[in-house]
Every structure is written in C-alpha cells, then in structure tokens.
C-alpha cells in the first residue's frame, strides 16, 4: 500500500471520527437549541412565555407579535374554554413539570402509585383526586390531613377546577392547562 493511500485513509479516519461527533450533535439539536420553529410558532412561544411569567398572578398577558392583546386568563378560562388536558406545576419542588391529564382522571399523593406523586411532609399518601364530571374537571379531597386548596380556599367537597385556577397541595401548586 502506498504512503499516499495510507495518509488519505488516516485523514479519512479522523474525518469520520468528527463526522460521528457531528451526527450525534445534530441528532441532539432539539436538546441543545430547542425545537425548530417557524416565525408564526416563534410568536406563539413568546406569548406563551409571557403568560408563564404572569402565571403566578393568574392573570397572564398574551402578547401576539403584530397584534398585542391583553386578556385575563380567567375570562377565557371559565366555562367557556375547552377541557384541560394537562397539569403544570407552578411552585414547589417539581416546578415546571408537566403532566398529561388522563381521561380517567388523576390521583395525587405521596404514594408511588399516585398519578402525580408529591413528596413532602404535608401530603397524604392518597391526598386528592382529579376526576372528570360531565364537561369539567373536579378535584376531590380524599380526607387528607392538611387539605387541598383551590384558589386559596380549603375544599370540603368536590370542587370544579377551571383552566388556569391554582390548586395547592402541601408545598406544591399546580394549574390545569389546555
């Protein structure tokens, strides 16, 4: 084998090594840079971010790119809106976690069999349950020690939860979102 071929193979090997690195990085692109967005989607994401920032006040502002508007969440989120499909934890140890809300409802508690597991000293093993009742989600307190709070009020009976209203269990607060 001539020296030149060997040099070419050598360089080719290094090139392949780097190609491998770049293929890996390329397949990780959505992890590194977030998913690729079209301009319209970018506007949407921005508006979502604005909403998330204001979520604590439960009156977020939705800012569309070329037509900025401000609407209180509650106005749109009442009985008028569609059914919530997921839960977003807004405070507590697992802030930012998103969980799909299954059709069959969701149990919340400290036990590992709970659909949403909240581990703190204020949460009972089987603390509360979110179930669907007709066209809305209803939260039931399952005789928990420290109670379940909807919009800051401790609930004593099944209470409907609207999209965007906060539910607090122990140190964790979450919201229903569509």
């Amino acid at each position, binding site marked *: 084998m001539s020296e030149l071929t*060997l040099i070419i193979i*050598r360089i080719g090997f*290094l090139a392949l090594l780097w190609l491998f690195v770049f293929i890996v990085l390329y*397949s990780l692109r959505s992890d590194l840079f977030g998913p690729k967005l079209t301009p319209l*989607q970018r506007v*949407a994401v921005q508006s*979502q971010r604005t909403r998330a920032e204001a979520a604590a006040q439960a009156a977020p502002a939705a800012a569309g790119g070329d037509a900025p*508007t401000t609407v209180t969440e509650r106005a*749109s989120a009442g009985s008028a809106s569609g059914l919530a499909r997921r839960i977003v934890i807004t405070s507590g140890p697992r802030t930012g976690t998103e969980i799909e809300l299954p059709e069959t409802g969701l149990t919340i508690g400290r036990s590992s069999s709970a659909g949403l597991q909240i581990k703190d000293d204020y949460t009972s093993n089987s603390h509360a349950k979110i179930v669907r009742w007709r066209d809305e989600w209803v939260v039931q307190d399952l005789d928990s020690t420290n109670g379940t709070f909807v919009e800051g009020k401790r609930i004593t009976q099944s209470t409907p939860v609207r999209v965007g209203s906060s539910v607090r269990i122990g140190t964790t607060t979450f919201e229903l979102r569509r």
Partner: protein
Amino acid sequence: MTDRTAPTALQTGIVQLRDVTEAIKVRIRNPAKLRNLELFLLVIAWVLAGGAMVLVQLGALQRVDMMPLQLAGLLGLLTLALHIALRVVAREADAIILPVVTVLNGLGIAMIYRIDIAEGATGWDAASMRQIAWTGIALLIAIATIVVIRNHRVLARYRFLAMAAAIILLVLPLVPGLGRTINGATVWIGLGSVLSLQPGELAKIALAIFFAGYLMTARDSLSVVGRKVLGIRFPRVRDLGPILIVWAMCLLVLVFQRDLGTSLLYFGLFLVMIYVATGRRSWMVIGLGLVALGGIAAYFALGYVQRRIGAWIHAFDPSVYDAQGGSYQIVQGVFGMAHGGLLGTGLGLGRPDITPYANSDYIIPSLGEELGLVGIFAILGLYLILVSRGIRIGFQGPDDFTKLLAVGLAFTIGLQVFIVVGGVTRLIPLTGLTTPFLAAGGSSLLANWLIVALLLRLSDSVRGRGIA
C-alpha cells in the same frame, strides 16, 4: 382543537396561537425512532472501532491480520445484543450513550493492541486480548443489569447496603494477603496469580447509589436549616456528620492506599451530589476548604504527594526528570503529544510505547501522538457528549433519586477524565486514575459499563421526553 364558545375575536386570536403552541410541543414518544437512531450511530461506531484496528495493523504491521478483527467483531455483536436488549426492556432509553461508549471502547482496544504490537506481546500476555475479554464480560454484565433491574428506584432501598459495600470494597486492598501494591498504590486485590482487580472502581458506583439515596432523604435538613454567616447559609454541625465521614474516608484512602486520584474522585463525587441536592453554595465552600486542608496536610505529611507535585511543577528539570519516580513519564507523554502535532503520526506509525504505561494511565498521550490534536479533541468531545447526556438525564429525571444518581454517575466519568487528562497535560499534578473506557484495565471497564447500563436504565424512566 376548536374553541366552540370563544366569544370575541381577540380571544379566538389567542386560542389560535395556543393551538400552534400545542402543535409544536410534539412529544417524541416514538421509541422505535430512538432505537433506530441508536442502531444507525452504532453502525458508524463499529466502522470507527474496526477502522482504528485496521489502521493500526496497516501502520505497524503493513498487513491486515484477521484474528484480532474477528475478536473485535464478537464485541460488536455484543453491543448489538445490548442494543436489542434495549429495544425489548428499555425502549425509551437514551440513544446516544451506547454508540459513543462503543467508539471510545473500540479506540481504546485499538490503541492497546498497537502498544502490544510495539512490545511484541501475544496471547494472554497481550493487554489487548485481556481488554477484549474484559469488554466482553463487561458488556454481558451491562446487558444483565439492564434486563434484571427494571426499576432502578429499588436501589434507593439498598442505600446503606451500598454504603457498606463501598466501604468494604475500599478497604479490601488493605487486607493482608489479598491486597497488592503496584507502583506504590495499594488499590488492587489479587485473586490467584493472574487476576488482579481494582475494587475501588466498583466502589464508586456503590457510593453514588448511597449518596443519591442518602441525599434524597436528607436534602431538606441539609438545605433549609442552618446559620447564616457572611450571606452564606451554613448547615448545622450534626448535618455535617456524613460529609465529614466521607472526607475522613477519602483521607484514609489517601494515606493508606497512597492513591491521590481515587480519593479526589470520591470526594468530588460527594461534593457535587450534595451541591446538586441542596443547591447551596456553602457546601462548595466547605468542600473546597476541606480539599485544600487535606491537600496541604498531605503535601507536608506524605512523601509521594510531594514528589508528585514536584514532578508536576519542575517536570523539565533534569534532576527531577532522571529521578526514580520523577517526571520521565510526564515528559515523555508531553513529547509524544508534541510529536503527534495537529493530525497525528497516524495509527501504528508513532512511538507511543516509549512512555511507561502507554496503554493504561498514558493512553491519552498515546492517542494524542497517533491521532493528533484533532483526534484528541474528538475523543474529548465524545466524553463531553457522554457526560452531558448523563446530566441531561438527571435534569429530566422524574424523582430525586433518579436525578441525583444520574448526575453522580455522569459526574464520576467527567471528573475522572478531567483528572487523567489534566494530569497528563500538566494542568494538575498527575494522579493514577483510569481513563474511562479507553485505558487497559478490567475493573475500570466493568465499572464504567455498569454506569452505562444504569444511565440507560435511568434514561428510560424519563418517559416521553426523549430526544427528537
């Protein structure tokens, strides 16, 4: 999704935007896609590993010898078996880790094989044969781990068992008759006359499991209570207990086993895990303070630490260079890498075997000489990807134990690479640690493949959040 009752135009506008945001949040919940990506990357990894071996033969022997290639092919089949096992029992596991590790392991075997050729070692005397055998064993154990441990959270239950195991593994080399002292460090145990193992390598996994389990329960008392001094909240004295025990244990390793690298690794592991668990900078302050304290004490009390630091700072001083246990090795490694330059001498064409321990402690300079700066950076890039995947798994982990364990395991690999590469490039004093997956050594391979198996298992529990 349509909003049936949206009353005003403004609101419908918002609803449409929301529809779009829903649309982008496409969760990649397609496990088959992940596994196919893994297979694709694995094929490239095989080509790279096999290619490295062929290049070594072309460079050093000027011919292609099929025997080692066939053995390497068997290892390829085992990685394929691991891939298939993942398809069955951990469908949503990370797709990047296995191919990256396969490339690293393959490059390591090729380089060890290259040193064997230079030294004329054959059969079981050849480190490459042993490395291939150990890789096979490690892969089988990794497959078994993935298949047997379906839910890693059970490991949290055995945290104190893990601690006991770690301590026993650490102390084992000090047991008379069992321990072996090689090059001054008593970190080996000998079984019979051929087999020597480094139990400390396995101890790091047991320690990571213990730390993750312990911190999972103790994080609250560690992060919330305490007195504030100079704006940093310091923990209570009784909460300091475990960290002091671990620190003392590392110092014992340092003093009695004379192994600087391992004690640094264990302590770094604990420090990072406690920092991740509590998010408090005071732990870093305390930990680095303890490292400085231990380091200074070790410098004045232990002769070998002094020699190491002397060889690091005055490496090119002729008296240090010629001294027994001086800087000869460090300097040869640096010369080797300089000889390699940007593109390297080519596999099989350099003279990495001049450096002592060119196939274990000094495998990075060996690779640096023959693959050049370009090759070394690719290898470091692979390590970076590997560690970042592990930390990513920790970031997304569904519970505290998963998070802490993933971060801890990934960090051990990262810290080990830093200590080794920093040592051979004279950034920090040289310490004897193995380069994960590259260096010759069965215990290290076993431990690191176990880490891979655990990381894959942990990543599978991050449901529906795999990469695109």
